[in-house]
């Protein structure tokens, strides 16, 4: 009976719920400004944005791995109903790798060059699952096989520098999956890899998700990956989420001018004037904007509709619902949607 209640509760509570998260530098500069994000069970959520938008800081904040200079100043990160922000270091160590695993951009840098692959893949099994050395090493070969490494028994004894980038990322995935986590945070997992290997790794991540009922937070700047991979997408800009919702709808007809511009840019299809779409200016100054919409200085929609200028430059729009689980932070959502399909 008690078990039954537990499962019911688990279904209703999302796996990860971030509320009003703020991350600041010690100097007081805010890098993440009131981030709300929900990841359901077995859901793949992509967090996209340009460099400097705060997506990697978000990834580090979610597993409380922020460097010393950065602090979580407010907000909550609830993983299965428990607030990660309030946890102690030992509680966090029990959680990392067991409930939440991470995957980074440069697998060869993340692996320890002085110890063999098997020791590194076995670590979560020994730490979190209490397996002995021999038992853990036996599991490693299975794990390496399941991530598609040929000759797993041989590769288990290799060092990281003997692996190619794609192989090293597979090893990282095996290590991340070893203790059976519920959430995988993957920060640009394929950016350093060749396109052919990138497709293999993405497919592998999809298989792992099916096999282990895994939720994935994919952090990327590459929108072509997003449409092939994610169920939901959140677009970040200057420490804020500007649009969040189902990938299919957003990629077809986004509700925020920034998302629209970003998609047009990634398509590399010339506009009517024969030029590629580009977003004027750069986003690096946007964190300093205190009044109005942070994207306003670069927004072409605002320039085309002078009537919007006063609202956009004086009052920052809230994250308002557009559709089913779809929100956008814009004063002119209706106008953006009116522009029709993006491609």
């Amino acid at each position, binding site marked *: 009976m008690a078990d039954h209640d537990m499962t019911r509760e688990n279904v209703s509570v999302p796996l990860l719920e971030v509320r009003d998260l703020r991350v600041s530098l010690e100097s007081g500069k805010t890098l993440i400004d009131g981030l709300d994000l929900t990841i359901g069970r077995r859901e793949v959520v992509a967090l996209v944005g340009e460099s400097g938008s705060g997506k990697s800081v978000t990834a580090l904040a979610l597993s409380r791995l922020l460097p010393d200079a950065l602090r979580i100043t407010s907000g909550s990160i609830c993983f299965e109903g428990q607030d990660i922000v309030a946890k102690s270091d030992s509680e966090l160590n029990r959680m990392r790798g067991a409930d939440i695993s991470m995957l980074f951009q440069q697998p060869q840098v993340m692996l320890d060059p002085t110890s063999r692959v098997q020791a590194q893949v076995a670590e979560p099994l020994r730490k979190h699952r209490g397996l002995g050395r021999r038992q853990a090493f036996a599991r490693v070969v299975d794990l390496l096989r399941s991530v598609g490494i040929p000759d797993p028994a041989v590769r288990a004894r290799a060092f990281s520098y003997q692996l190619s980038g794609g192989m090293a990322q597979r090893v990282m995935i095996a290590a991340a999956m070893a203790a059976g986590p519920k959430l995988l945070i993957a920060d640009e997992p394929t950016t350093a890899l060749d396109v052919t290997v990138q497709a293999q790794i993405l497919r592998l991540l999809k298989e792992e998700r099916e096999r282990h009922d895994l939720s994935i937070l994919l952090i990327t700047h590459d929108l*072509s990956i997003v449409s092939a991979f994610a169920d939901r997408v959140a677009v970040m800009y200057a420490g804020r989420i500007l649009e969040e919702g189902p990938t299919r709808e957003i990629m077809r007809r986004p509700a925020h001018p920034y998302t629209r511009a970003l998609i047009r840019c990634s398509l590399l299809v010339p506009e009517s004037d024969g030029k590629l779409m580009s977003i004027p200016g750069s986003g690096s100054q946007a964190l300093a904007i205190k009044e109005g919409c942070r994207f306003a200085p670069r927004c072409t929609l605002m320039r085309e509709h002078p009537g919007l200028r006063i609202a956009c430059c004086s009052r920052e729009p809230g994250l308002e619902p557009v559709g089913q689980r779809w929100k956008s932070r814009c004063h002119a959502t209706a106008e953006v949607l009116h522009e029709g399909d993006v491609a």
Partner: protein
Amino acid sequence: MRRPIAATSATIDCPRRDAPRYADLACRKPAFLSVEGVVKHYRLPSLTGAKVVKSVDGVSLHVQVGEVMGLVGESGCGKSTFARIVTRLTNATEGKVLIDGEDWLAPTGEALRRRRRDVQLIFQDPYAALDPRMTIGTSMSAPMAHHGLGGGTAERRARVLEMLGDVGLDASFYHRLPKQCSGGQLQRVVIGRALLLEPKLLICDEPTSALDASMRTQILNLLMDLKLRRGLTMVVISHDLRVMRYLCDRIAVMYLGKLIELADRDTLFNSPTHPYTKALLAASLLDQNSLSAADSLLEGDPPSPLNPPSGCSFHTRCPHARPDCAAFEPELKLARPGQFVRCRYWEALAEESAGVRETTGDPSGTLARSAQSAATAF
């Protein structure tokens, strides 16, 4: 016995996109950049005797005036080594490179230094290409001063300011330091600095890979502008096929130091012939179905150039490999007008896939769909 038309002859030249396809083959117009059988071997000392990495292994490529040639391939395929040879940053082991009919590998020392301005190189990372302690203005005028161009300091300054405008930056950048600029702005500076030397040939090695999507389109617009307005001859190296499709007239696909397919842009995207090209297209132009379609993705990594496979170097990963692919090395042959391919069985494969398409009632084919729908893939 008639020999197949091999890539080593000058007949490989294919005309610009709008000209009739066989024009060049008939008139044999000399190419502007002509690379003939270039080989670069690196010797690596090892305990078991020196090993040789065949980084570039017999590449022939001919680029016409005003043409933009793309070079695409996975990391380690030799595309950057090719760029280093053409810019004389490294010496070729074998082969010839002619620029405008003149031997480009012969000059050394002072003669080479004076001619270096003819071929300029744009790197991937603009932060690394600029001295962090030099202002943009100083960085941009230094190469001109080095080559004795632009008269005195005042004239050089005027030309730098004019060039800043040409690449879409305002005069305030003259006194800025690299750390005060974004990556896209710095890449414009690097391109402007190269253009100030009035090069005959611009080699762009991954010019947009380090940039965000919005910056990338700014640089691509600038490069396209150079192509259309100045008629600059360019070789663009990238792993991003979307960039290639936008910018290039012709595209050469490299695998383990060899060209395996060479075609004009539309032919390559609409009817890729080599299995590797097909796989590369499928992996680059992802859409919602491509991660679930089992057959379209390549398995494994590229083989080590230290120990390349026998025969066709792609046979270890090729989904259509036949037993004798491991034994015989194919040559680069003319497949269709303007399209060269290094595969012994491309005709059989083309027939097979046509058959599959008919039986499955998929007239466009999976690949044609993914290539064409890339515009609507999102």
